[in-house]
């Protein structure tokens, strides 16, 4: 259950102390670290891009084809054997597990960070993938020497290098005659350690017919795509990994899938090791190499997957666009504080924070009463649209959310999305000022006539309550409410303490808004306050809160003790 902190103050004793805005002003604004998104990617071509394709499975450290690759917290991948020896980390004592107390300097110059040894494990998906690729390369390596290509390595030069230095580099660069087309020969060159990671290659076919063996490359790449594809499905969603993100235990999932898993538990779904990562996956790097492989091998599938994911984030009925938080009463213009810990609502909040920051708050339908056309839904028909003002994400995935009521709505249709409710809503607005004025005139005039008639007939009796109420002008109703507030303050009513006023502000002098403020501070049940959400006339709202005052006064409540009316 998500509990609203504000409820604390309904407790008869000491509630006041615990009533404070739970969200500190310096709250973090949390957003996802955007993952690298590649612009319109074109698939790498087997022949033309052979060098680039082989680089994808080369270790940036030792330049050989990756062997037991480890993906580091920075998202880069090297062979495990290419990792430097772990050394004790300075000034680190938490978490106090042996493998976290040791660190290793990231061998990649673009990173340079010190990674905890615990987070540098073999990448299960990539290991399998490079083994499969190696096997295919071996299978396609011809035993006869009938398809010769000359490969000339072009070492990477720095522009700052002197001319003769560049000359010298040409001398030390490798040259080889290898067989089986560009892909196989390039891979072979990397295998024998004669192709630097950063180097380029110039190819000359030595075929007597001038054949450049392009069809060999095409056939091999088709085969590589086929074997790779089977390994690139996420174990949570069963589709192509989208923005693959690798855990410290070496298991890889779509970024979104991993985030959803972390909403529900802190362990890896595959090996059940503890992961200690926040569900926002904030600061968690994507697997750069897997992303490059996906984009290089099958950009069309990657694009289709992204489109499908976007469609899946929408409910089947794309008019159900408002997420619904079923929890408590919220009121327009007033703050509502939420402590979110149910996994489905964690997901909802994350999506809200990334989106337009708005969601609908509705109350539980405790009596299962039918809700208009919706029938006996789990929630009440009318609610308040809330906007997130502050979002504080805790390490364990819970969050404190400060919101403000934007407006009221009625639910026209509803459905489910990933475990939470979504709805199509219709805003509930007040009547125009002209209509409001007419209504006041009509009501007060007719009440006056009724009152005169009643008094003529019953000179000594008190006016019936409904007539007496309708006699008041709208301004008069507000003034009476304000007067009541003044009296209650003088009597030090606990529900009007400085604390509460600092959260909800001074009572608004706008008759349209006053009832929301009053309902926010007054300790009566939410079900009673709920009727305000259904009103579309200012006067009607004021009459409702005025009647609450009548009840409170009727219960002789001079001390302002909140419990007496609970």
């Amino acid at each position, binding site marked *: 259950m998500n509990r609203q902190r504000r409820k604390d103050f309904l407790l008869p004793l000491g509630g006041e102390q615990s009533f404070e805005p739970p969200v500190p002003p310096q709250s973090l604004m949390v957003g996802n670290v955007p993952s690298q998104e590649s612009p319109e990617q074109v698939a790498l071509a087997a022949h033309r891009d052979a060098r680039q394709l082989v680089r994808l499975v080369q270790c940036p450290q030792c330049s050989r084809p990756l062997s037991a690759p480890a993906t580091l917290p920075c998202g880069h991948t090297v062979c495990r054997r290419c990792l430097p020896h772990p050394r004790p980390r300075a000034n680190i004592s938490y978490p106090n597990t042996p493998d976290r107390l040791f660190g290793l300097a990231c061998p990649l110059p673009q990173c340079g960070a010190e990674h905890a040894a615990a987070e540098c494990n073999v990448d299960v998906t990539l290991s399998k993938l490079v083994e499969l690729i190696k096997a295919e390369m071996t299978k396609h390596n011809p035993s006869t020497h009938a398809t010769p290509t000359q490969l000339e390595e072009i070492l990477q030069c720095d522009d700052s290098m002197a001319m003769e230095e560049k000359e010298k580099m040409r001398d030390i660069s490798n040259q080889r005659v290898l067989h089986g087309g560009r892909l196989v020969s390039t891979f072979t060159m990397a295998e024998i350690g004669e192709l630097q990671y950063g180097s380029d290659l110039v190819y000359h076919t030595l075929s007597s017919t001038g054949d450049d063996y392009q069809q060999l490359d095409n056939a091999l790449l088709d085969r590589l795509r086929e074997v790779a594809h089977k390994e690139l499905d996420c174990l949570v*969603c069963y589709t192509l990994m989208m923005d693959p993100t690798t855990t410290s235990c070496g298991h890889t999932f779509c970024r979104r899938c991993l985030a959803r*898993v972390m909403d529900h538990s802190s362990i890896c779904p595959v090996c*059940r090791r503890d992961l200690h990562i926040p569900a926002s996956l904030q600061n968690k790097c994507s697997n750069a190499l897997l992303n490059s492989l996906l984009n290089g091998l099958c950009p069309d599938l990657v694009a289709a997957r992204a489109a499908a994911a976007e469609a899946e984030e929408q*409910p*089947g009925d794309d008019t159900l666009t408002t997420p619904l938080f079923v929890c408590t009463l919220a009121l327009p213009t007033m703050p509502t504080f939420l402590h979110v810990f149910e*996994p*489905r609502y964690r997901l909802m909040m994350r999506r809200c924070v990334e989106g337009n920051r708005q969601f609908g708050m509705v109350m539980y339908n405790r009596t299962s009463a039918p809700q208009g056309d919706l029938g006996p839904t789990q929630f009440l028909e009318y609610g308040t649209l809330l906007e997130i003002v502050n979002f504080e994400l805790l390490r364990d995935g819970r969050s404190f959310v400060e919101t403000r009521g934007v407006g009221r709505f009625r639910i026209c249709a509803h*459905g489910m999305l*990933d475990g939470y409710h979504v709805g199509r809503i219709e805003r509930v607005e007040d009547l125009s000022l002209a209509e409001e004025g007419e209504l006041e005139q009509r009501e007060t005039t007719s009440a006056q006539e009724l009152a005169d008639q009643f008094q003529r007939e019953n000179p000594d009796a008190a006016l019936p309550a409904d007539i007496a109420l309708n006699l008041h002008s709208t301004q008069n109703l507000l003034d009476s409410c304000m007067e009541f507030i003044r009296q209650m303050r003088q009597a030090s009513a606990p529900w009007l303490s400085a604390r509460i006023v600092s959260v909800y502000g001074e009572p608004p002098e706008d008759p349209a808004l006053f009832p929301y403020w009053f309902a926010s501070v007054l300790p009566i049940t939410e079900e009673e306050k709920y009727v305000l959400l259904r009103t579309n006339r200012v006067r009607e709202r004021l009459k409702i809160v005025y009647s609450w005052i009548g009840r409170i006064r009727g219960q002789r409540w001079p001390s302002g003790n909140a419990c007496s009316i609970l």
Partner: protein
Amino acid sequence: MALPKRIIKETERLMAEPVQGISAIPHEENLRHFDVVIFGPSQSPYEGGVFKAELFLPEDYPMAPPKVRFLTKIYHPNIDRLGRICLDVLKSNWSPALQIRTILLSIQALLGAPNPDDPLANDVAQQWKEDQNKAIATAKEWTEKYAKP
């Protein structure tokens, strides 16, 4: 609401490569609801029995486990009178990397290896511990009586 890709794929695979001794067929009008049949494992008191069960994939599947319940009466210390099953992978040990197939296999394995130390049906567990032979005989009897087609 559209059915998630994963549920479609799992269903297709269940149909294409059925598991030995288990069948799971989705309802036509609700593809999250499966009619399940589990054959009692050989060399267990349930051998020869055909046990019907229902399986439902909740809204937040695979984040939450499937809900499974036996419909055929069964005498088993980890299955109660309402057919509810006490099995860790259906509760706290669920992981989204598990699937319908693995869950049904676990349930079949549970039939082959009753665990009276972690009971759901207390009376059955009690009898199982006090007089295992008699309990097994009762389980066989029930299988004969309720689980024969």
